[in-house]
């Protein structure tokens, strides 16, 4: 066995350790209420002795917690749909605004382009905390506090998709577009017949990266949504608390599923997106 193979093996082991938290959750979701409470007793009840423990394989696997959550908690579905609406709303908006903008930046020359693009890039770097006050004042002024639109609209205007799509659209050879123009193709046709198909890896990576980000959105809803019936899953989960641990594990797993699915289906594009957002070409 060469050194490289041993290294690879160690890497794989470390990678499995990285996956352990998810296995923990899955195991917890398959335990009955009693088994969870037994494992976590020292945390659940003040003054009890000893330490919490965990099993990667439940002794008495059961789907009871799933049934309980899915059948008996209508609130959970509301939150789930809120999350879906938020994520899909933001992504749709980003596509609608971002694709034309990136196309314009990538394929045309106009005065002030460099300056505008630099401003876009700087704005994309601002973390939410810096934008918190300005978002609040704006949403307050527009009457959009306590509404899903108040979260969706600012996020749909995020400049990150424009930046990422720009990188992909720049890769389309100009000669191709010039030839189509000579054949009489209109400017809008160029986007539909060349931009969208050839830039589709970019579009998919924006969707995958965006979905992982907005499915996970916490700061904005926390700050701007007082009405709990509008909350996304990500805010609801920590509220469940350790006392109802059985349900909390199931809810965590269900919240994880769509993101895991997006990751599994889009990993290649995810990597392309990460690389395109960081390197020059």
């Amino acid at each position, binding site marked *: 066995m060469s050194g490289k193979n041993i290294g690879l093996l160690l890497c794989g082991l*470390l990678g499995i350790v990285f996956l352990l938290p998810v296995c923990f959750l899955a195991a917890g979701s398959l335990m009955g209420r009693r088994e969870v409470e037994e494992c976590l007793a020292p945390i659940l009840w003040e003054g009890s002795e000893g330490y919490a423990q965990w099993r990667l394989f439940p002794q008495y696997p059961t789907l009871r917690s799933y049934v309980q959550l899915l059948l008996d908690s209508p609130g959970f579905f509301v939150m789930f749909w809120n999350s879906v609406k938020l994520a899909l709303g933001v992504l749709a908006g980003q596509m609608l605004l971002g694709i034309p903008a990136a196309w314009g930046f990538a394929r045309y020359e*106009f005065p002030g382009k460099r300056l505008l693009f630099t401003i876009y890039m700087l704005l994309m770097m601002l973390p939410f905390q810096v934008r918190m006050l300005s978002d609040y004042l704006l949403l307050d002024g527009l009457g959009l506090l306590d509404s899903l639109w108040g979260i969706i609209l600012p996020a749909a205007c995020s400049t990150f998709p424009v930046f990422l799509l720009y990188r992909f659209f720049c890769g389309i050879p100009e000669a191709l577009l010039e030839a189509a123009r000579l054949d009489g193709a209109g400017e809008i046709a160029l986007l539909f017949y060349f931009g969208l198909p050839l830039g589709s890896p970019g579009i998919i990576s924006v969707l995958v990266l965006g979905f992982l980000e907005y499915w996970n959105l916490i700061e904005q809803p926390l700050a701007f949504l007082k009405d709990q019936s509008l909350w996304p899953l990500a805010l609801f989960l920590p509220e469940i608390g350790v006392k109802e641990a059985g349900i909390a594990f199931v809810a965590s797993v269900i919240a994880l599923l769509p*993101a895991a699915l997006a990751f599994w289906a889009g990993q290649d594009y995810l990597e392309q997106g990460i*690389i395109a957002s960081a390197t020059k070409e």
Partner: protein
Amino acid sequence: MKYRRKTQWTGLLWILPSLLGVGVFIFFPFLDVVRRSFIGAVTGDFVGLANYRSLFTNRAFLLAVRNTLRFLGICIPLLLGLSLLPALLLDRQRKRGQLVKSLFLFPMAVPVASVVLLWRTLFHSQGILNGCLSRVSLAGRDWMNTGGAFWVLVLCYLWRNLGYDMVLWLAGLAGIPDSLYEAAKVDGAGKWVLFWYITLPNLLPSFFTISVLSLLNAFKVFREAYLVAGSYPHESMYLLQHLFNNWYRDLALDKMAAGAVVSAVVIFGLSLCLKRLWD
């Protein structure tokens, strides 16, 4: 053949919808905050730099800045180093590396809210981690309520971001032409020589971009910090983001405005460095 593109106003038309959105929802509101940072919260008069002066004498602000700098100073080098190792091993491995890469990248997809419960059970004073430690007769500690909280946060950050940085390192490594290695091997260079004189120097541009991006990503660790420990966590993990959140709850508009402008200036500075690397 390179085509010279003539100036086309149609380009601006493509951008117009996005421009309007960005203007209304991001750009002008931010300018308004810059204006507010020079205005007293109560009176509404122009107060010059008074808000900034009170910011830099504010105990909570200084604590948060110190903690944030300490956090970045520890996390970024650790992350860069730890992600480079697997990247070096996975470089030029094609198929076999893919699975390992997926394992490292996956935490990025795990919603923060899903793991909150786990962090709580893991790092509780009678939690699973202390249970394991006691079994090998090591003394545990109350992680979340001591200086240990800071290290829990570091761990969360590394767990979530290692794969991201690894992918970037791998892209950098893939960009080093094979011919360089071949030529050096012909000249009889050993493994370490190759690493020191070819791999490392050629990774330098990647190094800078990855550092800046990791820095910017570090702001998202607040999600974990907040969900696990709430608005008032242990002092050692009280970061700028907690401070902003608490200001927001108290509607301390003047401090928030000044704080936002100071943070934005620092971030803009970093981003411009990054842009120079790209251009």
